[in-house]
């Protein structure tokens, strides 16, 4: 099947290569959801010779659309009137709606467009309240657009309940919905393909942002149908924590994942940083995904152990991806993690902390999907991963969330805090898949030069 690009590489991936070349598509969504920007990016992104014909109706004045359009970097004003031709149907619609199809045919003959956008199609239908008359016009219009070799895009403020009732949805080959969903005090935008006749597509809600260069879309992370096949690696990796490796059979197995659970202040972030620092010392690039400590706070922590941030952080060493938990959106983070792991040839990854990631997911089952996918992806690439997970109390208790996700990890470390006169931190290896391990409780000390696990067994 021949396809045309949407003008956006990620949307093309979601559509399995783009829109079918000769198709009628409805782009639906509430006001402000990004429909017009989507259509304009598509119109201006055409690489071939035939122009895009952008027909406005009675929703927004043409001058307003063109004025706001120029705020976006993808819209070169020099292309207006040549590669993208704007025409208004407003006068015709209010005075002679019966001539709509003839007018469309005339515009096709005049401009020979490769794509045709009608914005707003829904507003146009509303001007013709006689349903039988509108159906005749719609039928003829679909006839013209099927006869002529172009992809058409009908933009409208349609809602989900209209998909099964309005005749234009029966005519359409593709239906793409843009939505806004509240997430805390923030509105998140999602793109969803409802229908794409004759073609498969990546189903579900795909997060997107509107930026100066158009829509930035993140493909919904999906669980692979079957786990990737890879050979386990027997190599052991030093944890970077003095005394810990002897509890885990001389270190973590490469490509495995570890969950470090414990209350706030128990040393989870410190354990992750030691693991990454040891990797840098061994020539293994690392990535720290951090939702709590901003770069300044993190530099302060690193300096407190006598380490030099500029000797640790940098290309080929430690990469830091910091996102405020307030702005966290799980699809965009996971996509960015994949991108940085590939780009930076990352061998050690720490995500601090899972609780922030869980709160950013739309539901708990999707959260587990993300973790499973992350684990599979990293294991198949030999990336050794550590997740931190804050537990609700300072005793050795994982909590409900930990019980749900711990089966996904190869190793489970539990940190505790005891307040009996003085603060004592403890560490236990609860699980280390495929490794002999010492499950006793040991004392974990934070010394001026970093973490140390004592050899003696700590009392409960």
């Amino acid at each position, binding site marked *: 099947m021949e396809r045309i690009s949407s003008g956006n590489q990620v949307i093309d991936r979601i559509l399995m290569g783009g829109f079918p070349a*000769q198709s009628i598509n409805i782009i639906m969504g509430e006001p402000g959801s990004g429909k017009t920007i989507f259509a304009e990016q598509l119109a201006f992104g055409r690489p071939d010779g035939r122009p895009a014909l952008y027909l406005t109706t009675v929703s927004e004045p043409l001058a307003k659309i063109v004025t706001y359009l120029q705020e976006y970097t993808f819209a070169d004003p020099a292309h207006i009137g040549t590669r993208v031709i704007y025409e208004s149907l407003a006068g015709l619609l209010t005075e002679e709606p019966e001539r709509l199809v003839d007018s469309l*045919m005339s515009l*096709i*003959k005049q401009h020979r467009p490769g794509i045709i956008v009608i914005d707003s199609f829904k507003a146009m239908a509303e001007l013709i309240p006689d349903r039988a008359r509108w159906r005749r016009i719609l039928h*003829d219009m679909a*006839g013209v657009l*099927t*006869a002529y*070799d*172009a992809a058409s895009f009908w933009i409208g403020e349609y809602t989900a309940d209209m998909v099964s009732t309005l005749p234009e949805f029966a005519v359409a080959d593709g239906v793409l919905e843009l939505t806004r969903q509240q997430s805390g005090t923030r509105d998140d935008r999602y793109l969803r393909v409802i229908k794409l006749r004759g073609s498969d597509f990546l189903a579900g809600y795909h997060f997107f942002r509107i930026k100066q260069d158009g829509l930035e879309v993140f493909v919904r992370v999906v669980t692979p149908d079957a786990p990737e096949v890879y050979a386990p690696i027997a190599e052991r990796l030093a944890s970077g924590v003095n005394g810990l490796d002897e509890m885990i059979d001389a270190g973590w197995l490469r490509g495995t994942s570890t969950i470090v659970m414990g209350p706030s202040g128990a040393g989870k972030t410190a354990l992750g940083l030691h693991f990454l620092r040891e990797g840098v010392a061994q020539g293994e690039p690392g990535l720290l995904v951090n939702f709590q400590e901003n770069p300044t706070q993190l530099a302060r922590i690193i300096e407190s152990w006598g380490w030099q941030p500029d000797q640790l952080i940098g290309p080929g060493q430690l990469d830091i991806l910091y996102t405020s938990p307030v702005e966290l959106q799980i699809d965009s983070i996971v996509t960015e993690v994949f991108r940085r792991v590939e780009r930076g040839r990352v061998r050690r990854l720490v995500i601090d902390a899972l609780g922030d990631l869980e709160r950013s997911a739309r539901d708990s089952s999707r959260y587990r999907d993300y973790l499973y996918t992350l684990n599979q992806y990293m294991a198949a690439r030999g990336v050794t991963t550590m997740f931190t997970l804050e537990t609700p109390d300072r005793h050795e208790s994982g909590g409900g969330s930990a019980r749900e996700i711990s089966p996904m990890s190869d190793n489970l470390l539990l940190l505790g805090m005891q307040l009996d006169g003085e603060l004592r931190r403890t560490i236990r290896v609860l699980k280390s898949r495929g490794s002999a391990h010492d499950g006793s409780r040991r004392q974990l000390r934070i010394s001026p030069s970093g973490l140390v696990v004592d050899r003696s067994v700590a009392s409960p």
Partner: protein
Amino acid sequence: MTASSPSGTGPDGTGRAGAAALILVIERDPHVRALERFFLEDAGYTVEFCDGGDSVIARARSVRPIIVVTEILIPGMDGLSVCRALKADPATESILVLVFSVLAAEDRAREAGADGFLRKPVNETLLIGAVERLLADGAQEGPPRGTN
């Protein structure tokens, strides 16, 4: 004239001397007809339509078009049968036939004797290109095998 010229006579003397070359089109979709007429006439050809397959043989004998462009799905005799009938008749066998269909039927069109096949929808560049290629190929093959 050159083979791809839209004016004058065709490779076998078909068409109208001194006038734009005639293309006979069999198509029932009014929107496709409108676009075919516009693009072909814009390229310099004269276009005449037949309502269905049953009348096309007699009309082709009568007006001697340079090319017959036919859809497969037409009223009466289907487009492939039209193609066979034109190629079986010594009076019309040299008329070039372009099957222009919504169906993916290139092999069937070739088996029926069509000189060219093009899949819908109407794309100006592809349609005019197909017509010009047929005319160029027809000119290279030399004089017609039969005339009326």
